């Protein structure tokens, strides 16, 4: 139970952002969980590693909120997998998330921008 709490905390930290990233990667078509993780990883230049323990709870949460829907299909390598697809509701959410995220980035940038580069050896 205590371990579960740790996991849950990590999800909450990432929650808003991870949801947005997942919805963003689903914008170009249906994809399974593994594919979504790989997609985020490669687009972020291997910086963002989405943990399985965060990914699936997030996907099920999105599905519960009807932002994505899922169906079982075969992959190119004939592996049966659950494919997720963004819904109209999900697209609206993505637009809203995107706006909020941009506002946030702008705000943080304007706070962080004027930092003078510390001199070497100072």
């Amino acid at each position, binding site marked *: *139970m205590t371990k579960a709490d740790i996991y849950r905390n990590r999800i909450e930290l990432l929650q808003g952002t991870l949801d947005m990233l997942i919805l963003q990667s689903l914008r170009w078509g249906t994809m399974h969980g593994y594919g979504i993780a790989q997609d985020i990883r490669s687009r972020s230049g291997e910086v963002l590693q989405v943990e399985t323990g965060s990914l699936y*709870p997030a996907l099920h949460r999105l599905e519960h909120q009807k932002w994505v829907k899922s169906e079982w299909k075969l992959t190119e390598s004939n592996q049966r997998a659950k494919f997720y697809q963004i819904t109209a509701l999900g697209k609206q959410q993505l637009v809203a998330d995107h706006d909020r995220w941009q506002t946030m980035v702008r705000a943080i940038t304007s706070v962080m921008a004027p930092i003078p580069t510390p001199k070497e050896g100072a």
Partner: protein
Amino acid sequence: MNFLPSFDRRKSELQQELDAHIQMAIADRIAGGEDPQEARAAALREMGNALLIADVTRSQWGWTAFERLIQDLRYAVRQLIKTPGYTVTAILTLTLAIGANTAIFNMLYGIMLRSLPVEHPEQIVQLKLEMKGPSGSAGDPSDYVSGKTYDVLQQHQTVLSGMCGWSNWPLNIHEASGTHPIPTAALTGDCFRTLGLHAALGRLFDERDDKHGGGSEGYAVVLGYNYWRTQLGADPAILGRILDFQDKKGIIVGVLQPGFESVTVGDRPSLYVPSEIAPPEDRHASGAVNRIVLGRLKPHVTPAQVQAQFDPIFQAWQKTEEHKTQFIVFDENGKRTNFSEVHLIAAPGRTGTSYLREQFSRPLYIIEALVALCLLVACAYLATLAGTRALVRRREIAVRMALGASRMRIISQLTCENLLVSIAGAALGLVFAWAGGRLLAYMITLSPWANGAALNAALGGPVLLFSIAITGLTVLLSGIGPAWRASHLDPICEIKEGDLLSGSRRHRRLSAWLVPLQIGISLIVVFVAALMGSTVYRLLSVNPGFRTSGVTFVRADFSQREHASHSQVSLSRSLLERIGHAPGVQNVSIAQAHQFSGAMYMRSATATLPSGEVRKGDMVLNLTVAPAYFDIMGIPLLAGRDFTPGDKEGAPDVCILSRSAAQFFFPGQNAVGQFIDMGMGRKKQSHIQVIGTVGDTLYIGLRGNAPQLIYQPYFAAPWNPMPEFVVRSSDTAAAIAAVRSAVRDLAPDVSLDEPVTISQGIQASMASERLVALLSGFFAVLTLTLTAIGMYGLLNYSAVRRRKEIGVRMALGASRRGVVHLILREGLWMVVPGLVIGAAGSWGAARYVDSLLYEVKPLEPSVCVLSLVVLCAAALLACMAPARRAASVQPMEALRLE
């Protein structure tokens, strides 16, 4: 166990999804050139704890609480199956307790609380007569008013949107199979509209149908839905059929909607007819007080406003009446009160009326209180059991808590067991209530006032809610409390010691109030049962003054032949002759009415003594009987002679007095040969010779004194169209067969009522006492058993727990007797406070049941002593086995065990 298939399917799908993830990760790594085994290990490492991921993901579905509940339930089921003894005892206890509560409440609800199944029952008011005498008002207002009162009120009122006059008007229906009475209600025309009732088939009648003589084809008749379904096979072509009521005709115009039967709880008329079917001297008379009058309030009118308008109308009309109606009330002891002042009142009529209400409200409330106490005892018993169980499992609970289980989780797990047991108990209890309710309804309808009433014993919605509520209460009282205490422990200390001894003090504290409470409640229930038992015993041993078995009464309806009274005498005589010679019949006579039936004929009588003193009895009971009546009834002839066939119309008027009547009219003299005058006005009969005196008999009921009675010869009195055959026979069936066959052969148009035996009459007259006595006896045994078992369990447990201590004591020289005393003393500490609680409760209960008692004082010493002895005997019985067990401890073995 598969609680929810779709849940399990989703679970396995999630597993597949995660598997697929791993497979793809492995495949990717292999494609990237890794060794298959390394790839697998790396992928699994990257994934982490798959089970935990599945858990966390599932929690996103919002089903965690549900999943836990299922786990808890599974665990509880396993625990219950492991201890079948406990499970069966607990379920049985609850079945009885919840079942009894539901059955009694159902009856109480049906008789006292249920709304009439009409539109907006809260708008219905009932008009009643409140009688006031010199000593204030007399009990409950009368439900009945006269047809004339209805007419007057209906003409002048402006506050009601409709009025309904309702009376029972038994009709005889003549069919190919013979003539038989059929339960019928006579309704004023506006009744159905006022109550908001609809037709299931055809139409209902209205004011246009309610006129003297009826329509061209006869009176409009509406069938009761149940009658139509069960007796007429729900035949839709029934409309238009003509019914033969001998001198009147009826035509079926419709069938009433299902659900509604009568404004009187328990009545089930088969037919509804317009009120004008009754002759005008009944329908519009001010003396025939036989009508229930309901009305529907206009919007924004209150019952008080109705009363403010109605009572003045009523008073004004009363003043204009030529013959003032006298209002006289007899109570169950035969005491008579004359009322001078009568008021019309408007009371809420939501629940309709019931003659059962007056008679059974107190018994039912008493029984309801007893079963509620019984449920409390059951809860206390189960709480003790659950507490002991939890105590035995302390170690297990401690381990779970040490492993991280939260307190709430432990409590919910322990409560789950109770929940399951309670639900099982409640389900079985409903079955019990259904069966018990039928029995109860049967017992209530045995009462003389419930003639033909059929109480609906079906369990309705509010009753189910009630049983769910008491089940919840049971779980709360018997489950959550002990679970809360059980979860209140220090795991470390518990695991370290691992000894049963460590819980002893807390356990004692729990039992310190539970068992005395049970003992106290048991004493109350036993006490009430003892009071009621001795009441019934005393009622049974009352000598009513007549034979109590072997006599059957059958009422015949000769009213169709009313106008040819001369031929009736010969018909009656040939019927008596025929019945008297039938096999099995010893003797037969005719009487106007029988004892305890509620029917009373009263006349005033005066006697002028030789000294010139005039003795006047205002309202003396009067009964016309045929010869041989006294012999058949076993009433001793004290002096003079019985009536003979010669005492008929035209012969000199004669009468026979009961002993108390003889003493009243002719104190200290021989009554035989003297004369009395009876009646007044046109009906006055003077100079009636007393030809004999007979023993006193009770007439109204078993309580009270024998009333004064004047018997007159049946064949000399004015023709009575509804006499009863009084048959003495070896068995009832022979008597009934004899009367039926004689009437069928000689007078097929005469209809016969259901026969009543004399013992039925006596039993019915004490129906409510018997009901309370039987049920309180049942619940006394139940609570006493539960208490004794509970006490036995606790003491037994304590004997086991104190084994070591007892071993030490015995090793140090304590005798076996001393050890027995040790355990008995522990028992005594539970019994004494229990008796104190019980004595206080019994004192209160005695005051409440007072009115049902007969020749038993509420605090009758013998009853008090008896209840105490019974209780102490049960307690002693519960102590004996544990005490023996403790005394049989072998010191060496007990000490070696440690």
